[in-house]
């Protein structure tokens, strides 16, 4: 579905990363692991076109045969380091007014809220919620609509063990439905995935 | 022309000749205009300010158009040198606008007895000066100079749309409030004796501008690329 060849990125003459090669197929998971400043976020933003300057090749394709490419990132979901939960909106509104939720019915949203464990707080302002609960709203957004690829920037931070377990379950469940995940983190997770270590690539 | 090293090398060769040409034509024009052109029978000798005032005013406007063209190029094709050109041209353009304003004001004090009139010409030139200031201010506020170039290009392009509107609207605004008593273009057809030095002056000022721009652009290029290898070799010298 996504194939990256010899990806390289500079920022003011400094190489952030180079010779990055990976491939994600339908239902696959890929983890990019590295310390702070190793360019994890840059990789994700670069794939999405938010950083225009890079060298290397990025191939997107819907089906398995890579000849039929150029689907671009239309069916991608991105969750950045900032998860974009507005404190003045209720949990319900935060789910509804998002990339994935604007076509969802109230029933669907209630179902998703139950799945991620915020059904009791749906009409509460997000400013009253804890960091972990906000994170759960963000997880709820993944479920509102099926995307082919999810790009998640450090999804495990600010979550307790239960929350981590929830993410792992959800990812496994969505894998079986054909969605793929590209995840960054400081250390490898328990997910079944290919793992790429950015720090080792970077040695100069 | 597009690459900074090429421009730098090219300008190293041509800059002295450009300076020579500029100084010759510039001083010839001013010398002719201030020293030898005949006295105006209506205004007396003070009209000689025209040889400073009009070329500056012409440059003030054409430099802005140049910047807008560069802005468009830098926005569409991301040409590095176009962005640097705006950066270097803006202070020079602001300088010529200032000259046009100040000399016009001095001239006005002599002939009209007042430093300033809210005439359409004067007002729109003043606004042009504000536009230059906005561009210089925005550029200096952004630390990343490549970003600053592109931000400034947006303003330059916006300006070229808005400048004609300002010109027109100031005219309308003027006619609505009071009929203008004075216009700067009151002298009807000038005599060739006065017109020829003016032409030389415009030419000399333009050459001077090109030299100033090259000079300033060289500094900008060296500053931006001071960590690059070619600058280390050509500017700082090869010996270590």
């Amino acid at each position: 579905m996504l194939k990256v060849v010899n990806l390289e990125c500079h920022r003011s003459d400094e190489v952030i990363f180079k010779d990055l090669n990976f491939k994600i197929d339908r239902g696959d998971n890929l983890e990019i692991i590295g310390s702070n400043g190793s360019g994890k976020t840059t990789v994700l933003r670069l794939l999405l076109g938010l950083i225009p300057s890079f060298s290397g090749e990025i191939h997107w394709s819907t089906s398995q045969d890579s000849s039929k490419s150029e689907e671009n990132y239309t069916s991608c979901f991105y969750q950045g380091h900032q998860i974009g939960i507005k404190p003045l909106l209720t949990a319900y509104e935060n789910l509804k007014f998002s990339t994935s939720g604007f076509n969802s019915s109230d029933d669907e949203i209630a179902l998703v809220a139950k799945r991620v464990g915020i059904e009791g707080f749906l009409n509460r302002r997000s400013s009253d919620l804890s960091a972990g609960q906000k994170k759960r709203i963000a997880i709820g957004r993944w479920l509102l609509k099926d995307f082919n690829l999810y790009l998640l920037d450090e999804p495990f931070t600010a979550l307790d063990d239960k929350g981590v377990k929830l993410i792992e379950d959800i990812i496994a469940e969505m894998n079986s439905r054909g969605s793929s995940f590209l995840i960054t983190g400081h250390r490898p997770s328990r997910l079944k995935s290919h793992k790429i270590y950015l720090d080792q690539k970077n040695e100069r | 022309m597009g690459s900074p090293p090429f421009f730098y090398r090219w300008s190293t060769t041509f800059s002295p000749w450009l300076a020579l040409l500029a100084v010759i034509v510039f001083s010839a024009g001013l010398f002719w205009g201030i020293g030898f052109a005949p006295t105006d029978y209506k205004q007396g000798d003070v009209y000689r300010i025209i040889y400073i005032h009009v070329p500056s005013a012409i440059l003030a406007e054409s430099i802005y158009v140049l910047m807008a063209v560069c802005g468009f190029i830098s926005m569409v094709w991301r040409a590095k040198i176009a962005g640097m050109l705006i950066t270097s041209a803006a202070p020079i353009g602001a300088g010529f606008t200032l000259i046009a304003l100040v000399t016009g004001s001095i001239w006005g004090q002599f002939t009209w007895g007042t430093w300033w009139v809210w005439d359409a010409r004067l007002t729109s030139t003043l606004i042009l000066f504000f536009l230059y200031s906005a561009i210089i201010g925005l550029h200096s506020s952004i630390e990343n100079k490549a970003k600053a170039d592109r931000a400034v290009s947006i303003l330059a392009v916006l300006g070229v749309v808005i400048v004609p509107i300002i010109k027109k609207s100031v005219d309308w605004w003027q006619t609505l409030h009071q009929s203008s008593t004075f216009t700067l273009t009151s002298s009807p057809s000038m005599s060739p004796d006065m017109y020829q030095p003016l032409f030389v002056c415009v030419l000399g000022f333009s050459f001077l501008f090109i030299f100033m721009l090259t000079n300033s652009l060289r500094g900008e290029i060296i500053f931006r690329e001071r960590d690059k290898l070619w600058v280390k070799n050509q500017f700082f010298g090869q010996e270590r």
Partner: protein
Amino acid sequence: MNDRNNTLDWFMLVMRRDLILSFRRSATYLTPLIFFLIVVTFFPLALGPSQSLLSSLAAGIIWISALLSSLLAVEGIFSEDYQDGTMDQYFISTEPVFVLIFAKVLCHWLVCGAPIILASIISSLFLYLPSGVLFALIESLLMGTFFMSLLGALGAALALGRSAILSAIIVLPFSIPTLLMGTAIMTAAINQQDYSGFLSIMGAMLAIGIPGLCLLTVEAIKLNYE
């Protein structure tokens, strides 16, 4: 998965969200309103209470105050969305971003510009504006404040993450045509001349300005993504 009215859906989404957000934070619509009223009050204090003087200056005073307050109000329009990652979602979406930016500006004008126009009706009484020209004032302010919102959005995008006053300084010189047009309409109305020509010029400026300025604003926001 291809919804037909996807762009319209996005437009409504951004509008609804921004409207809800602005109404929950009362400062967004109260600050420009109060600023406007204070500035208008300052003029009689500085110029003296002479009725004939104020009456002749009223249109200009109201216009300057409306212009300044709608410009100051627009300053923070993108900063929150940019910082909390919502802006990323706009740029990832395959919808044309300038439509979403336009939604934000339109919403901002509804929340800040419209109250200012209402307040200008009240302040026209304080300043003894000739009552016959009130309609011209409203007409010219409707277009003028919207143009200022568009310009202010561009300034805010250019000064994103930098000082607030900078965006005002950048944009003020570019707002002069609007001011001149507005006062031209008012002067014509006071002299009982036909001002529909100026009105249509302003409309034309707006018609070019909406797509043009929104596109430039998108360019300006993109600068922060490099």
